[in-house]
């Protein structure tokens, strides 16, 4: 720990525990990697967003807003992005955040061994430093989702000095320029951050931010009730009503970016005929799923874009269950006695869901065998296309491209169905090469029409963000990516 990083900690100690305000947050897992390049877990982002600033951020309407970049210009038919940086920003270790640091961070994300960001940044040709406060990103081809990508881990700027020194161990002592600086971590117990009193947008209102992992939803909830933590994210759906009725607490319940549903392996004999896939999808009562399994803490889904996100279109309706239609399609495909296996993981919610699907399918005479394997195996079997149907969703990305491209293009990294449709490929590539959202939205809707007819995947519901907090905690912005930014949060 360098001298300049000890200072905020010492200042904190000098204030004394009586006046120093600590906010403790219960999260659902111990964040595996606090390194923007290596992080592959959703929960990492909760902590990373306090330590690191990004080039750009998102607001509650998912609009890309300035953060480290004050402004940007897109030229050369969408292949050159020129960012003007805020001046005078310093990392927690005292070194200046300039264009060279931005270039270093982006290059690091693109080249570090094991970096999970390579795919997101694969459209970048090179990053150029123009002067201290100007940096230019040149793309191989136009890539509309770039700003959305830079609003997450790919756009987090790390201290080159610290990253150089720590190498792959950077995640054990991360140094950024965010509103909070890393103090210490005890695995499975806590991650402690201290307010960055010299933060460029003003010091945070709390002095200390502590994250504590509680993998069990009941334990997380009990800790909120007992006052051991002041904020929990997420809240289990079954605790939502109890929390709403309790006057000592508040619940933030707002739309997220992700979706859940079922993949159909289009190469398997059972699902080769699209009428069969249409039939299975038609039996699902999405309203019932939301009500029975989730007590209405999720919204029924008809496509990949949740309401409130830029590409959402009201013309894409949530389908109503139609058992008669399903039977007709099965008969036409000559599969009146359809039997297949549904692969899922053994947690309580997925078990309940799979059983509900089983009951819904059976109304159309479809027999389903449920097979439960743990998550690693599920992903592995998805990679090898060793399944009939598979329950798997997506946490969602702020840019619509992140919710469809890798899933439905031929050979896409997340194309579990092995779906291939040349027209869809062309449309999704066209949308990604366009900058204006209105034009992209129109293209997505055409592509979606084809995907919805082919049914390699059927969307069932959109997750919502559920954050529980003690009365007196204020300032949490309902940003759809589900990450709580603690810079302006205060406790009474």
């Amino acid at each position, binding site marked *: 720990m360098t001298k300049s990083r000890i200072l905020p900690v010492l200042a904190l100690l000098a204030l004394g525990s009586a006046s120093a305000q600590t906010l403790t947050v219960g999260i659902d897992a111990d964040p595996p990697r606090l390194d923007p390049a290596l992080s592959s877990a959703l929960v990492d982002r909760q902590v990373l967003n306090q330590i690191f600033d990004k080039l750009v951020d998102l607001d509650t309407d998912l609009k890309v807003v300035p953060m480290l970049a004050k402004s940007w210009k897109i030229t050369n038919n969408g292949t050159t992005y020129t960012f003007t940086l805020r001046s005078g920003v310093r990392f927690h270790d005292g070194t200046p955040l300039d264009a060279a640091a931005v270039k270093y961070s982006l290059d690091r994300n693109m080249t570090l061994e094991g970096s*999970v960001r390579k795919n997101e940044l694969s459209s970048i040709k090179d990053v150029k430093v123009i002067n201290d406060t100007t940096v230019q990103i040149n793309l191989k081809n136009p890539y509309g989702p770039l700003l959305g990508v830079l609003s997450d881990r790919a756009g987090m700027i790390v201290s080159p000095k610290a990253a150089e020194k720590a190498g792959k161990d950077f995640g054990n002592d991360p140094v950024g320029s965010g509103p909070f600086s890393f103090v210490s971590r005890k*695995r*499975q117990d806590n991650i402690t951050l201290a307010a960055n009193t010299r933060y460029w947008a003003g010091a945070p209102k709390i002095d200390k931010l502590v994250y504590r*992992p509680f993998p069990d939803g009941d334990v997380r909830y009990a800790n909120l009730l007992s006052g051991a933590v002041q904020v929990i994210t997420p809240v289990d759906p079954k605790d939502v009503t109890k929390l709403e009725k309790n006057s000592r607490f508040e619940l933030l319940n707002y739309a997220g970016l992700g979706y859940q549903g079922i993949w159909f392996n289009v190469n398997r004999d059972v699902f080769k005929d699209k009428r069969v896939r249409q039939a299975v999808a038609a039996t699902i009562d999405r309203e019932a799923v939301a009500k029975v399994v989730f007590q209405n803490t999720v919204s029924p889904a008809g496509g990949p874009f949740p309401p409130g996100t830029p590409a959402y279109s009201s013309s894409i309706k949530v389908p109503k269950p139609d058992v008669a239609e399903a039977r007709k399609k099965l008969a036409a495909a000559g599969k009146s006695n359809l039997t297949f296996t549904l692969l899922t993981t053994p947690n309580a919610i997925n078990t309940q869901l799979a059983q509900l699907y089983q009951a819904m399918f059976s109304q159309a005479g479809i027999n389903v065998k449920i097979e439960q394997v743990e998550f690693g195996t599920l*992903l592995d079997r998805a990679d090898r296309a060793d399944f009939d149907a598979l329950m798997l969703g997506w946490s969602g990305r702020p840019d619509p491209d992140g919710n469809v491209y890798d899933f439905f293009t031929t050979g896409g990294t997340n194309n579990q169905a092995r779906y291939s449709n040349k027209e869809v490929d062309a449309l999704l590539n066209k949308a990604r090469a366009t900058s204006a959202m209105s034009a992209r939205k129109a293209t997505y809707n055409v592509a979606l029409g084809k995907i919805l007819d082919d049914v390699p995947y059927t969307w069932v519901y959109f997750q919502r963000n559920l954050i529980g907090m003690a009365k007196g905690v204020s300032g949490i912005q309902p940003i759809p990516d589900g990450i709580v930014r603690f810079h302006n949060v205060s406790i009474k």
Partner: protein
Amino acid sequence: MLPFALRRFVATLPTLLVVTLLVFALAKLLPGDPARLLLGEEATPQALAELRQSMGLDRSLPEQYGRWLLDLAQFNLGHSLKDNASVTALILEKLPTTFELALLSMLFALLLALPAGIISALRPGGFVDRLVTLLSLSGISLPNFFVGILLIYLFSVKLAWIPASGYVSFAEDPLKNLTLMLMPAFTLGIGSAAVMTRYLRSSLLEALSQDYVRTAKAKGISSGVVVFKHGLRNALIPVITAFGLQLGGLLGGAVITEQIFSVPGFGRLLVDAVFTRDLPVMQGMVLASAVLIFLVSFLVDLAYAAVDPRIRYR
């Protein structure tokens, strides 16, 4: 005593080697690809191949085992896939916490079991005996997680006497440490207390019906001396066995208890490693627990030999 100890120790070495083979094989038999799980939903085939190679997963199984064994011989358990921390350091960091938890829960168990077992053996069939039987049967039957959640609900949520979770090391703040450990130690100890009460009761009952006890009584020795010197000493042998078995079982119980009370010990590290398929951590921990259980059973044997000299000369 020393030759016995040595003989006993050497006998465990081949077993330990078999354990290493089993640990290695088990980790390999687990379904799921650790590289895939680590990289999660966003993995690209290229990143997967890179990671598999750096983890040595592309080598043959005998080669992987050989390398692992070689490292092991140098007390190198490898590095966590998750954050590159040394597995040995991780285990050493977590063990003291779990030891404290196990020690406190054993203390609870002994404090409850000794008086309860003795009293009920002295008046078999009486009111106290029946009450103790009822309580100890419930103690054996109630699962850890149930007792734990019940305690949290009662003492943290309803009465707000003790925080539901958290951990402060003993060195940092002894009082706070003990307060926070109270509920986990009780949760973990209650089952052991129940088992040991049952053992002590029946073995003391049997000892007290032996001829030598009757003789001692006939000689006019006070009943206190008869019970504690002649009865209890002989009755303790099976109880020590039970104690040893319980101590080994505590590691398993600690996994659940630590999860419920968010105690950052050995058990939570293990659960985390299993869920993230952190193979080096998992293998290191299973091996460490095997060694610990060997150690405990070794110490139990020594204690045995100390209580009953016949065992040493067998």
